[in-house]
């Protein structure tokens, strides 16, 4: 699952550029990490860093109930801009 893992610092740095594509992937509704990863064509562990970072800074939030597949779904947080 983890071919050539990138340095954590490098993955985290990418959060800024990944914000727009992730929010775009969530525009149609909530998705799990593997679903977002598939939409972006990126590894799931990298998507975890980005989604959790975006969650920490108020861009996305989780749907409280976990799905039967064991995954939470994440949604874009509406923001005024």
């Amino acid at each position, binding site marked *: *699952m983890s071919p050539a893992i990138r340095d954590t610092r490098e993955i985290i740095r990418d959060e*800024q*550029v990944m914000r727009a594509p992730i929010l775009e992937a969530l525009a149609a509704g909530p998705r799990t990490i593997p679903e977002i990863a598939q939409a972006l064509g990126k590894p799931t562990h990298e998507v975890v860093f980005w989604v959790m*970072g975006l*969650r920490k800074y108020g861009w996305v939030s989780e749907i409280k109930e976990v799905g039967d597949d064991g995954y939470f779904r994440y949604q874009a947080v509406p923001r005024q801009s």
Partner: protein
Amino acid sequence: MKYDALVVGSGIGGMESALKLGDMGYRVLVVEKEPSVGGKMILLSKVFPTLDCASCISTPKMAATIHHPNVTVLTYAEVHGIRGDGNGGYHASIRQKPKYVDEAACTGCRQCEMACTVAVPDEFNADLVSRRAAFIAFPQAVPKKAVIERAGVSPCTGACPAGIKAHGYVARVRAGQYEEAFDLVLETTPLVGSLGRACYAPCEEQCTRGQLEGPLPIRRLKRFIADRHYGRAGRTAIPRPQPNGKRVAVVGSGPAGLTAAWLLARQGYGVKIFEAAAQPGGMLRLGIPAYRLPNEVVDDDIATVTAIGVEIAVNTRVQDVARLKAEGFDAVLLATGTHRAVRLRVPGEDLDGVRSALAFLADVKLGHAVNLAGKRVLVIGGGNVAMDAARTARRLGAGSVELASLETREQMPAHDWEVEEALAEGITLRNGWGVHRLGGDGRVRSAELKACTAVFDAAGRFAPRYDEGKRTTLACDAVIVAAGMSADTEAFGLPTNGNRTLKADAGTLQTAAPYVFAAGDVVTGPTMITTAVGQGRRAAFMIDRFLQGLALDPSLLEAPLPVVDQAAVLRRQRVYDRRVPLAPGHAMSAPPTGFAETETTMTEEEAHLASARCLDCGVCSECHACVDACPAGAIHLDMRGRDVEVDVNAVVLATGFTLFPADAKPEYGYGRFRNVITGMQMDRLLAPTRPFNAVVRPGDGKVPDRIAYVMCTGSRDAQVGNPLCSRICCMYSIKHNQLIMGALPLADVTVHYMDIRAVGKGYDEFYQQAKDMGARFIKGRVAGITEKKDGNLVLRYEDIEGDGGIVEAEYDLVVLAVGVQPNPGVARLFADGSLALDDYAWVGEADEDLDPGRTNLPGVFVAGTASGAKDIPDSILHAGAAVAQAAAHIERSRAAAAPARAAAEPRVQVTA
């Protein structure tokens, strides 16, 4: 400053020491290197065996420490030298790191953090999630104030002679904030579009990424933001500043003049620019060919300047500076550049068809008719102007363009890329030739060249030498001379240098006449746009101070932090992804047919890919997003650190422990397998302020069903040089077991252990309770872990209590119960190396059994885990022992110093 005691470190050991000493009436200084007090305990979920919430019991102590009347706390500060003072006390040097935030003003609202454009791993969440360069360490931080992490100035920004925050706008582009990126450049200069195209980009030469696969295209990113801005319909108007009643005349509308005019006008000065040429822009307009910088872009940049009220009078050559003063200008800036062409001083130079590159380029750029169609053109010179002239001639349809330079190809002062592009466009180089004479019958027909044997003398001065015997003659119809440029300054009547540049103070740019300042190439001689912009900026700063009657102190303009060490930047990562740099956006054709730009603008995707390569060298990018966002105006990126010197009677070392680096046991796959985490990471996942929304796998966000613990990772293990038991990992793992079973009732938890060390009141009961709740305990050391395609992990261990043999078990999350290690920094606190460590590098106690807390140095004590692994209750007890010893020492030294006074004066007593 004098204190009774210095406490180094503010974990539970340090806080406890400080509070107890403070309660006894001693004046205590606590120094903590992190931005908050609290150490590791505040980061824990709950504490064993009571399962009290760690932050609920930590925060009152943290607040008490900060607010105690006898305790002074310096956070984000480091002790870097403790020395005996010869009288039984100690002297300590402390560095207060700059926080870049005014603590009194900061309300802890986190707006800066939300706005910040730089994401780095959050060490307070064990690197499971990001934080920002501007950050509050964690939600319960005390003090709850932001700090900004700055490692120095990023090399790109540091290399910009104009002082443009290159890293800042790269970070803004990466965050998709193109208008903000444009505005950031405007803080320095209005020439966003011109620099985005024609800057020689010294930033890129210094870009750290250049040491990997190639520098970022920093200049082209600036072009990208300029093109977006100028291409946008309905641009936001820049507000006109309130006039301050003073007037400044700027002579010359090149980069220096335009920049100064813009910056002064933004401060309310009435600025009028006087320009000798028919159109404003200086060399941007008259020198740089349109295929590199179209006139429309120059127009756009200048429109920004005139939009805030700057007037420009063209076709107006100023000869008399005093008259401007008489006309009511309070100050004058001379920014007239170097527009006089240096002559070759060879026979035939005045023939028809021979002209200077400057005049030639200006004619073409201003749209005057220049006919070179089919002609054989010879360009003389090896610099960038010669390249511009040659390539322009090519575009005008010259039959052939040859370029003769004194220098060899390698010595040519023109940029390499420019020479390459010229060659690609079909220009022929003749290196190592100087002009002997030009021949013709009224009109130039030929050039006789002589071989140049050396361009510079031994001292590096321009002093060409020739082999007079080696000659060659070229037939030509036109000769363009690009042999240099000089300033035209006689009319101003001000002192000049030998090369006719104006004499102005290098720091203040003031000339001999106090109200006259000079900036740009007219002072420095020919340089480049960005240097002239930097001069214009300096001049604006100084003129403003002059007109306000303030001292002209160059150090006030900017005292940047030192540029970061690039090797240190590159050491931050173990591996680097090689990212293909953007191919140069050049469409080269031989022969080029017109003046269309050779370089294309980036697409948004290209801009993202390019900016994403930035390494955030300085950490903070100086993008000013936090400055814009902070409602309290608390952010000051010009804040600097300070040194604090203190004298103390006693020192308490409470520097705690570090965690075993789990990747030092490669067989467990930490750092390679994403679902292998450490005990500290699990504590974070279980804490109320956790990095994720729940306990989920970092590999894919799945809620784990089967969780394994691998005990004694890095402890009791001679292979990693640590034979000691870490004392806490058994108990924290059992604590996790209970918390996990509470949070994930369906999950199975299995602990692979050697033996469980549950020594302490209620500890064994706590262990039994975990078993009763369903945690499985399997005895035997785990030999290795492998990862499956789905991210699950297979543990191999010897089943020594069951059926025997090597067994494999599959889990979806593995927690390595990492042990503790000594904090390596503590010995370095004593510059002379006098502090004794024990055999395992923990702070040594002179007599662990009978005298806990006392080190080999009289008056220096150790509290908490700095002397060895301990849990929280033991750390507190140990701090109590150290404090009792410290108090006795302070009393003894007081009595020795002033026996009578010590007996007479009661101490201030503070009761909690």
